[in-house]
């Protein structure tokens, strides 16, 4: 499951997508809107995506995870539009036979998503807004 959605993410569905009888560990990562950024109060975030390319990149990252960690299964869903404080903008589920690989694979998936998937975030403060860049963004 690699998708962009407009409303709240169905977390049990993302987790169910990686179920397999050989799995000994499942990690579900949630990226959540925080109430502050460097001291400024965040009211909400708004995301936009280059949709077809974003889904293709999510699928490519998932294939990399499943190729690199034996027996891994991966699913990723990113929410678009406004995401209020406390709600998840992204949910990544990974299952593996053993937990060490699960932590590595989950971390790889979110780090790579931030660096490669064409999605943009506007932070809306009480007193303004700003497009926020991930530290992971490669400049070309």
């Amino acid at each position: 499951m690699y998708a962009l959605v407009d409303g709240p993410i169905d977390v049990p569905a993302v987790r169910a997508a990686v179920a397999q009888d050989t799995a000994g560990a499942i990690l579900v990562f949630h990226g959540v809107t925080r109430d502050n950024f460097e001291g400024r109060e965040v009211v909400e975030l708004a995301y936009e995506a280059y949709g077809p390319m974003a889904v293709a990149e999510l699928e490519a990252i998932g294939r990399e995870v499943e190729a690199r960690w034996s027996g891994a299964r991966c699913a990723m869903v990113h929410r678009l539009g406004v995401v209020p404080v406390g709600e998840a903008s992204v949910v990544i589920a990974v299952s593996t036979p053993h937990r060490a690989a699960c932590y590595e694979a989950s971390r790889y998936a979110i780090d790579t998503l931030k660096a490669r998937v064409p999605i943009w975030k506007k932070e809306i403060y009480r007193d303004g807004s700003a497009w926020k860049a991930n530290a992971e963004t490669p400049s070309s």
Partner: protein
Amino acid sequence: MKVRVLYFAALREARGCREEEVEVPVGTTLGDLYASLFPGDRVPVAYAVNQVYAAASEAPSDGDEVCFLPPLGGG
């Protein structure tokens, strides 16, 4: 020849539209095209042609979908 150019985030706001058709000479690179559309802009963009990452030195073909990607914020 013509290419379709898509804009997102700060570039969309700067350009005032989501996409447009642009007439470009054959052989124009992505870097040249960006410089001509956003003169003086220092945003460290990445480039995509037909939804795949591409180098600044690549030249799109007639009818291609081109996108300049400002720094990403997903996650």
